[in-house]
């Protein structure tokens, strides 16, 4: 078990926003090519803002903490803002991740962005990311 920051341990112990939003407006599913793990984000959008966001995660302690953190960071943000959330920011918000766990943070932001783009496509909009 790697040494995780207190923040990672806190999110791992009490992950926020687990689940699937009902009648999701956007769904983003990603698999991790490095270790074979998975994340699924679902979002509810209202007035171009992420009103609700939930996730399921199959992965390590870092991956669980990352998905929890991403859900907190994304909630209430406009789609434009949420698309700007980077993996690096997520890792920073978590007080850093051990070197060989950085790839787990990719999963979180990627899944969120995929859910947003899914929503935009359904709306017939182009995301300019």
């Amino acid at each position, binding site marked *: *078990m790697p040494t995780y920051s207190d923040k990672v341990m806190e999110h*791992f*112990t009490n*992950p926020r926003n*687990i689940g*699937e939003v009902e009648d999701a407006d956007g769904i983003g*599913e990603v698999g991790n090519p*490095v*270790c*074979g*793990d*998975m*994340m*699924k984000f679902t979002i509810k959008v209202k007035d171009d803002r992420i009103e609700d966001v939930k*996730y*399921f*995660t*199959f*992965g*390590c*302690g870092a*991956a*669980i903490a990352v998905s929890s953190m991403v859900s907190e960071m994304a909630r209430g943000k406009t789609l434009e803002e949420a698309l700007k959330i980077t993996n690096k920011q997520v890792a920073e918000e978590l007080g850093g991740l051990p070197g*060989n766990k950085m*790839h*787990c943070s990719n999963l979180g932001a990627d899944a969120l962005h995929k859910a947003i783009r899914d929503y935009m496509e359904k709306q017939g909009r182009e995301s300019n990311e």
Partner: protein
Amino acid sequence: MKAINLDYSAATPVDEAVLQEMLPYFTEHYGNPSSGHTLGEKPREALEEARSKVGRLIGAEEPGKNQIIFTASSSEANNLAVKGIIAAGKKKGNQIITSAIEHFSILNQLKGLEKEGYEIIRLPVDKYGLIAPGLLEEAISDQTILISIQAANPEIGTIQPIDELAALARKNEIPFHTDAAAAAGGIALDVDRMGVDMLSLAGDQFYGPKGSGALFVRRGVRLRPLIEGGIQEKGLRAGTENVPAIVGLGEAARLAYETLEERAEKVAYFRDQLKESLFNEIPHLHLNGHPEKRLPRNLNISVEFVEGEALLMRLNMAGIYVSSGSSCTSQALKSSHVLEAIGLPPELAQGSLLLAPDRENRIEDIPYITEQMAQVAGLLRNMSPLYHQYLKEEKKNANLQ
């Protein structure tokens, strides 16, 4: 808080009796065994006593007939066996046969030898981790210079039919080495009955100190040392002997030999009770390894739909210490080569847990372990996309019926 160790294959504590035997050799009997004066006498005697104790554990007591070379670990013993025999170059050829589920201290040095031009044959195993003797027979050629196959696997506990495998080696006059690090002290071993020419073991696997190991070498087998210098250990391992560690290894071997059956029975009983309890209370568990031919100190299960590091961390918070073969727990982010070799699907390898109980574990703790495991599995499944996908499919199937 509770502290229940279910990871004794990572390390065992040093037995109190072992420690007491060791202590005088740090201070009172600190002499160098090579010294010609009085101070060398006691340590020298202690070395030979330890040698015969280790010999007895593996049925290799007769001094003169066989050699026990003390090393700092079973990894070192494995290196001395493989590299030593190749460097000695007694038998001509370029092929080495091993299995796909060996310890890294065998596999990694063979990878190196492969780059140097040796042909390495890694025998596959069946879904239980067993090697079919027929496959070894087919693989043996006039180019084979060494066969190295572990006695039992530390991760899934599968015990190999070493006697049958070694008989094939003997028939073809090929030296046979077995890595018995996981087996020694846990199950009865006898180098003659097994028919092996070399055997590696480590003291920290059976209540001896870390940094203690040994390689048994049958008479007539020629090795070159890895460490050259003085003629300690019959010239096969230079450097002043680590007398306290060797004394500890010897005493641990004596204790292991004398209590072997009793301990094996007790540990296997705990293991079986734990298994039953877990499988009764938690759905979607999968047993890895052989149902019977396994080390007493080994229960390897996969918890479907969840990942091992998350399981390990949650159990750690509950004071239960386990290990996992998932890719996320490994430094290299690769899932266990053993689980891959037995053909376990990647999702199941991700949820693998190794539970390695030993004599300290108490039956009374099983309900707590089970309860915590059930809770942790439930919690992680509840956030697993794989589990929810499974539930959806179940529902669909139910509606169809």
